């Protein structure tokens, strides 16, 4: 017969094994914050099964791995969870839209630096127009993925900060949310990860705190006129202090 203790220990075990669904795992984590016995059960199972990991014979470590880690230590600190569902990117080369470790490392500078950089690009690049607003779109890993500068009511300039590899037949689509009633509006498509100016539809002037995001869509753009693909990065508009 199944007891409460069995239920708790089985759940704790499945949680450690990674066998709970996302929703079940979140619910169990909520329970963990207030159920000391459940916390103890998780700790016990982790420690017991962890013996298997502790005994694993070391694999060779490639010499460049530490350099790649060290290059990113100054990267963005943990901003906490991003709003909404930003997909994890660049996990594994198989999944990866992000391929170039060098650029990931070199460009994952802190948020403030990036804003300065974005502003600087505008100053040295083509002179005016100055951006009215600057948005740093953060990836799921809280790293800067793209800068968007709102140059006017319709025109934006985008500068990717990650070497997004766009699969055949796909494009990155930039969206903004002028207000919840209007819903997300497409500002245009990027078929390669390169600086580009986009002219979107006529919209009210962009406001500070306005949401911008990029999603992966078919090469011709979202078939529905709304984001359908995974969110690659998102961020809120800020006023540059030029």
């Amino acid at each position: 017969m199944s007891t409460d203790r069995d239920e708790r220990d089985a759940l704790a075990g499945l949680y450690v094994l990674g066998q709970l669904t996302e929703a079940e795992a979140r619910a169990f984590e909520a329970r963990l914050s207030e159920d000391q016995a459940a916390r103890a059960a998780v700790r016990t199972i982790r420690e017991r099964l962890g013996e298997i990991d502790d005994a694993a014979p070391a694999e060779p470590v490639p010499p460049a791995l530490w350099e790649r880690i060290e290059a990113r230590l100054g990267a963005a600190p943990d901003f906490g969870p991003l709003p909404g569902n930003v997909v994890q990117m660049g996990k594994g080369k198989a999944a990866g839209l992000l391929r170039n470790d060098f650029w990931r490392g070199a460009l994952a500078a802190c948020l403030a630096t990036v804003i300065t950089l974005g502003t600087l690009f505008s100053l040295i690049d083509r002179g005016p127009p100055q951006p009215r607003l600057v948005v740093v779109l953060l990836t799921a890993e809280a790293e800067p993925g793209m800068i968007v500068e709102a140059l006017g009511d319709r025109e934006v300039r985008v500068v990717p900060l990650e070497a997004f590899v766009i699969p055949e037949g796909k494009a990155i689509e930039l969206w903004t949310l002028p207000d919840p009633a209007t819903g997300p509006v497409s500002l245009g498509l990027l078929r390669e990860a390169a600086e580009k100016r986009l002219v979107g539809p006529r919209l009210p002037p962009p406001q500070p705190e306005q949401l911008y995001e990029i999603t992966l869509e078919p090469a011709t753009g979202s078939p529905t006129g709304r984001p359908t693909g995974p969110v690659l990065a998102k961020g809120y508009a800020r006023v540059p202090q030029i």
Partner: protein
Amino acid sequence: MIDHAAAIEGCARGDRQSLKRLYEAEAGRLIAVALRIVRRRDIAEEVVQEAFLQIWRKAGSYDPELGSARGWITTIVRNRALNVIRDGAREDLVDAHEIAELGERTSGVEDAVAQLSTNSKLKRCLDELDRAKRLCVLFSYVGGYSHGEIAGALGVPIGTAKAWVRRGLLALRDCMG
């Protein structure tokens, strides 16, 4: 053996040398742990790379009451590896899981147990489980298999695989005392 808890404390203070000490002591073992789950060396290395960045950023949130420092680090690697195989990377990796014959997969996870010391209580308790339940627990923990993949590997319905995993966990608990 380094003092893991002290090294994590160092990371929380922003001391890079502490992270490097952890890395030098653990990177090879952690690649092995990730490799058992993701089965591709390049991906395992990337998992470990991202895990060390996470350790660096989250060191301040490590709570010794929730387990050992070494276990905390391993859990970060395990979770990242599981995330990789549970999301987009799945297509490529599922193939790797599927093309391996059951015999090969079985020996892979049994090898992990063989590494345990001969007087390990965990080893004795795993050996005492019947083979199906032992494989269920090991496929899950060592290989990161989902219930569905375990069912596929053992040629049983998914409900059976779920029940075996659960019973295996509880039998293991009872044996470990």
